[in-house]
């Protein structure tokens, strides 16, 4: 009896358990379905939200691009405006400095026999430095450089560059034999070398020499500037090379309150006139070696164009018969000589001279004085005070 009761109980429990299991399974299935449904719904909403977000982001990006564009345009316009304003001022300074240089040269030649010459030379030196800065600013603003219409020896071009820096006495120039720069290259190369010399002078000790030498490498002429300065780090070197390539020029507003536009100016004029400048070398004093590399289009051998100051000398030389009479004291005796007379050809450049045979030195002196008196113009150099001689 109790066994039956137990059996029934067990059966009842088993039935209940099965029912419970079935109910649970059914419920979990329903739950799973509902979960999937809600997940799908959520996913759809998420996708929608994502879409919205993407759209919003895209709109933001275009807006930002537009803004950047507008800012860039505004900056460009501001740069152009600054440049055009500054260009006008720089050109004014540039031409005034050039005019002043010409005037000062005239005054120096007129009062050349006077003690005031020293002061005049100091003023000319200051003016030459100002002219260089004015040229630099003008170039940065896109104005053309001043032009020279006479070819010149590369030695004189470097001396011209030398005159444009403060401590010009530190520059030692090796004399090259017979190389001239074409007229179109004279002014740009002089300015580029001047900026390099200024750089060399600024970054080395005040008494250290700066050496300029010349080298011909294949069809190129190299002007090599060695300083005994501190040299440059890799980073500086890279930055300098980038600027000297003439690309990626800094904006005027990026130059800072103490603008250093030496390298940008060199880069610009080098690119405009077809030569290259490199400052990555190390000089033999451990400083910077700057090399200006001029392709053959910019220079010639000088034999074809006699330099203005030396030409007449060779024509004076064949004098007498070669015997040099000496006095008992060992001093040469004064004899008749074929003298040069200065005849200017009217150019405003360094006066070109042609030799004319004279009867004696005194006659030449008289003619020189006379011609200077006749031509009341300062570009004909009169040795000051020679009238009193």
């Amino acid at each position, binding site marked *: 009896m109790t066994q039956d009761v137990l059996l029934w109980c067990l059966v009842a429990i088993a039935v209940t358990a099965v029912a419970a299991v079935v109910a649970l399974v059914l419920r979990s299935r329903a739950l799973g379905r509902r979960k999937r449904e809600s997940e799908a719904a959520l996913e759809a909403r998420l996708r929608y939200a994502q879409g919205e977000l993407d759209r919003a982001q895209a709109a933001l990006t275009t807006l930002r691009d537009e803004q950047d564009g507008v800012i860039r345009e505004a900056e460009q316009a501001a740069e152009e405006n600054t440049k055009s304003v500054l260009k006008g001022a720089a050109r004014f300074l*540039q031409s005034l400095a*050039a005019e002043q*240089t010409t005037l*000062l*040269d005239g005054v*120096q030649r007129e009062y*050349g*026999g006077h*003690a005031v*010459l*020293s002061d005049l*030379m100091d003023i*000319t*030196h200051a003016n030459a430095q100002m002219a260089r800065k004015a040229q630099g600013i003008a170039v940065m603003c*896109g*104005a*053309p*450089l*001043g*032009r*020279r*219409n*006479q070819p010149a020896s590369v*030695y*004189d*071009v470097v*001396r*011209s560059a030398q*005159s444009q820096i403060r401590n*010009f*006495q530190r520059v030692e120039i090796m*004399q090259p034999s017979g190389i001239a720069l074409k007229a179109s290259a004279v002014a740009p190369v*002089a300015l580029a070398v001047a900026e390099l010399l200024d750089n060399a002078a600024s970054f080395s000790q005040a008494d250290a020499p700066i050496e300029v030498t010349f080298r011909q490498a294949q069809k190129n002429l190299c002007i090599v500037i060695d300083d005994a300065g501190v040299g440059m780090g890799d980073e500086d070197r890279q930055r300098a090379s980038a600027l000297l390539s003439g690309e990626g020029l800094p904006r005027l507003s990026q130059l800072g309150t103490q603008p250093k536009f030496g390298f940008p100016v060199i880069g610009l004029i080098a690119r405009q006139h077809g030569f290259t400048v490199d400052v990555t070398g190390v000089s033999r004093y451990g400083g910077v070696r700057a090399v200006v590399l001029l392709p053959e289009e910019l220079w010639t051998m000088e034999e074809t164009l006699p*330099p203005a*100051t*030396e030409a007449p*000398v060779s024509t*004076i*030389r064949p*004098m007498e018969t070669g015997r040099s009479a000496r006095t008992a004291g060992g*001093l*040469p005796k*004064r*004899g008749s*000589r074929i003298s040069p007379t*200065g005849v200017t050809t009217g150019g*405003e*450049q*360094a006066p070109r*001279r042609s030799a004319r045979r004279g009867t004696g*030195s*005194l006659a030449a002196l008289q003619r*020189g*004085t006379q011609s200077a008196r006749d031509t009341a113009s300062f570009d*004909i*150099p009169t*040795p*000051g005070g*020679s009238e*009193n001689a």
Partner: protein
Amino acid sequence: MSDELDSELELTAPLVPLFVIAQGRALPRESEYEHTTIITAQDGAVAAARTLAPEARTVLDLIADGFLSVAEVAAHTRLPLGIVRILLAQMAEDGLIHVRNPVPHAERHDPVLLTAVLDGLMRIRTGA
């Protein structure tokens, strides 16, 4: 390169300014290298002149075989007198040139003293 709005500026001043030719040296004293001071090149100076600047070489060529006065050198080279004097001073320092100064002006003496000396001399002559 050239801007159509603004023409190129033409640089007309000599390429090498005088202060570079003078190499930044000061003028010699007034009494040195006067107009009439006579100069001539030392023997062998021309051969040693390879390293000179063109202007100094021109001067040396002019005076290589004879005498010239300072004023004449200035006239021939068409350089200002002061620049020539600076160049000459440097060349004299380098031992490239002979310099012969002009005969100095007679100094002014007291006429009373001169008369007294003359009188004394006369007395010696007459006394002898």
